[in-house]
């Protein structure tokens, strides 16, 4: 990016200073796990005037995912989000309402056919034709189904949109499902689960789409690997207490006050994939995430764990991910594990301990040479002794 472009940034972003703008770009780059040079690329992509619009559809949700984006305490980050991603339709944030905003949405979708990013927040009820969530007289299910084919990319933000979340919890009276399930296999939804998800996971995904014009590496559940590759248990600041068997046994006991592992209080860190311990929440520094504050993780982002498993139930510990889930980059190059320097050396010793290799050829040669020399010297010495003895005997005979 040219310097003069950067100088123009404050005008372009209204209240945002150039410094703040670059800071946010750097944070996003870091959470994506990209080299810092990519921050410039992202800044370029964001500063370019052709920012694709975002259509934000809200289904069965609590607006928590919107709130998480707005409540980020980076300076004026809400303005950044609004400016970064040209939010054309959002039921909570739009100044307009009613027919006016529905009309604006229709216009934006038509004008940006195949270019806009569709963000789905909240679960989608499917029972009884989806009548349990109506927007502008239409069921959410129909809205999503008719908007999805026109979008460049679909992002499901939050657990509800990713896999159903709270609305889908048993007995699931409205037949709530996530965006992927509602849309079927024809569409690939990028899921950012969490309740709420970390705003930077969402922001990073959007900026990755803008910058590289492709979908980030996703896992089997459609979650970007950069954020959901590791178990919370693996990055947890209390992991050492788990490994040493130091557990808080009830809230407020000595172990709990001393910051020991919360596993026995029902922490679901060992079965939840997320980057909470690394990114933290609210930009207020260390320990600003559930486990950091002494509250066991309840697995909000993991299907089958959050809102499903009892809070006090102990998590399954059967997962074996000492080096994280396998992670392949576009070039087929393996990143993570050793590259991230998080894998302990020789995690587990093998059944048969490695033995030192035998002596080298040079050592054997040298030893053989020395032994040969010693043998030769011994033989020569013995011969001499024999000769001398013989002589002595002869002399004795003469005497």
């Amino acid at each position, binding site marked *: 990016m040219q310097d003069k472009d950067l100088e123009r940034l404050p005008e372009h972003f209204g209240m945002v200073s150039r410094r703040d703008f670059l800071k946010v770009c750097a944070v996003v780059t870091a959470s994506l796990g990209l080299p810092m040079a990519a921050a410039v690329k992202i800044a370029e992509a964001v500063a370019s005037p052709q920012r694709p619009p975002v259509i934000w559809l809200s289904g069965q949700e609590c607006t928590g995912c919107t709130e998480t984006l707005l409540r980020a305490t980076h300076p004026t980050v809400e303005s950044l989000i609004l400016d970064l991603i040209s939010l054309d339709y959002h039921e909570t944030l739009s100044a307009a309402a009613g027919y006016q905003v529905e009309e604006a949405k229709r216009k934006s979708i038509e004008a940006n056919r195949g270019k806009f990013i569709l963000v789905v927040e909240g679960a989608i009820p499917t029972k009884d034709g989806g009548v349990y969530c109506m927007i502008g007289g239409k069921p959410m299910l129909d809205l999503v189904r008719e908007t999805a084919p026109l979008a460049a990319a679909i992002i499901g933000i939050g657990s509800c949109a990713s896999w159903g979340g709270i609305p889908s919890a048993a007995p699931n009276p409205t037949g709530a499902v996530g965006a992927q399930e509602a849309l079927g296999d024809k569409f690939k939804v990028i899921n950012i689960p969490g309740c709420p998800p970390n705003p930077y996971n969402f922001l990073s995904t959007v900026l990755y789409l803008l910058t590289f014009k492709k979908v980030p590496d996703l896992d089997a559940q459609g979650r970007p690997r950069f954020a959901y590759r590791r178990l919370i248990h693996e990055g947890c600041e209390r992991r050492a207490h*788990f*490994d*040493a*068997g130091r*557990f808080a046994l009830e809230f407020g006991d000595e172990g709990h006050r001393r910051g020991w592992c919360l*596993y*026995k209080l029902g922490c679901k860190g060992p079965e939840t994939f997320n980057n909470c311990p690394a990114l933290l929440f609210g930009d207020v520094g260390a320990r600003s995430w559930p486990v950091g504050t002494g509250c066991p993780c309840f697995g909000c982002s993991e299907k089958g764990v959050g809102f499903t498993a009892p809070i006090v139930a*102990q998590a*399954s*510990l*059967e997962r*074996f991910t*000492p080096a994280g889930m396998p992670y392949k980059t576009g070039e087929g190059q393996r990143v993570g594990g050793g590259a991230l320097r998080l894998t*302990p*050396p*020789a*995690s*587990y*010793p*093998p*059944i*048969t*301990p*490695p033995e030192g290799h035998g002596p080298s050829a040079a050592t054997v040669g040298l030893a053989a040479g020395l032994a040969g020399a010693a043998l030769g010297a011994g033989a020569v010495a013995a011969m001499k002794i024999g000769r001398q003895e013989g002589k002595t005997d002869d002399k004795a005979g003469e005497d």
Partner: protein
Amino acid sequence: MGLSRRDFLKVSATGGLLAASALSPVPVLAREPRERLPEAVGILYDATVCIGCKACMAACKEYNNLPPDHSTPDSIWDNPLDLSAKTYNIVKLYTNGTGQFKDQETNGYSFIRRFCMHCVDPACVSACPVSAMTKDHDTGAVVYNKDACIGCRYCQVACPYNIPKFQWDQAFPQIKKCQLCSHRLAQGNYPACCEFCPNGASIFGNVQDLLKEAKRRLALTPGQTATYPLHRVDSQDRRERLVTPYQNYIYGKTDGGGTQVLILSGVPYEKLGLPTLPGESTAATSETLMHSLYKGMIAPYVVLGGLFYIVYKNTTKQDLP
């Protein structure tokens, strides 16, 4: 020397007869195999439950005051490669092929925790010439007395599991091995490895109860949920978990005369580095052999007589003073 050949033979024959008559004519009996002590305590390690967290290793080091053991040049982690004088307890990993599936022999992996098996009839105790290795009369733990030890390391050679380790780097070396946390048992606690195992892979208890628990687990149907006790076999702290297939064998029930540490696994035991041992303990075998050879000192006397005869026959007048 005035001893004629005739006299020598007379003397040796009388000696042999005397020796033979002085002892019972009953044929030599094998040494009775030792039975499990009724109050014996032990550990049941279930490899299918183990998650390889190494909490037992960390707890073992802490409660036995053991220093870290390094196997990498940077010496950052405590990462022993095998049992040593600094490591009484180690979690090892078996992998095969892609190593994807837990507790499967092919393309799978399994953890295995190795530490003293606390044999019912320990070879180290049998081999120790000074009774530095002893088996506790109540708990059955195989314990070591450093003040009696002469450092011969017979116990190391005798142990079929290669457990006792020698402090090669010490001026006054000792034998180091798991002693079933005897110091903690004396205080009314139980072994640290079981207390700190978060998943119930290692549980402590009376060996009879542990055997019952192991049999119960082998009878479970894989794929169904079952309750597994944590820490102690009689613990009220229990967990539900999905049963995974077991090898239909309790390692340590009879192996090498039986052990107080029992192991369950989903992978064949020999793959996990556990030796295939006969039902009779090596201690019983070697002591039977020894007692037969030295029974009443007959065989040694006969050999000695033979040696005397050979020497006598080859002795000439010049050799005598």
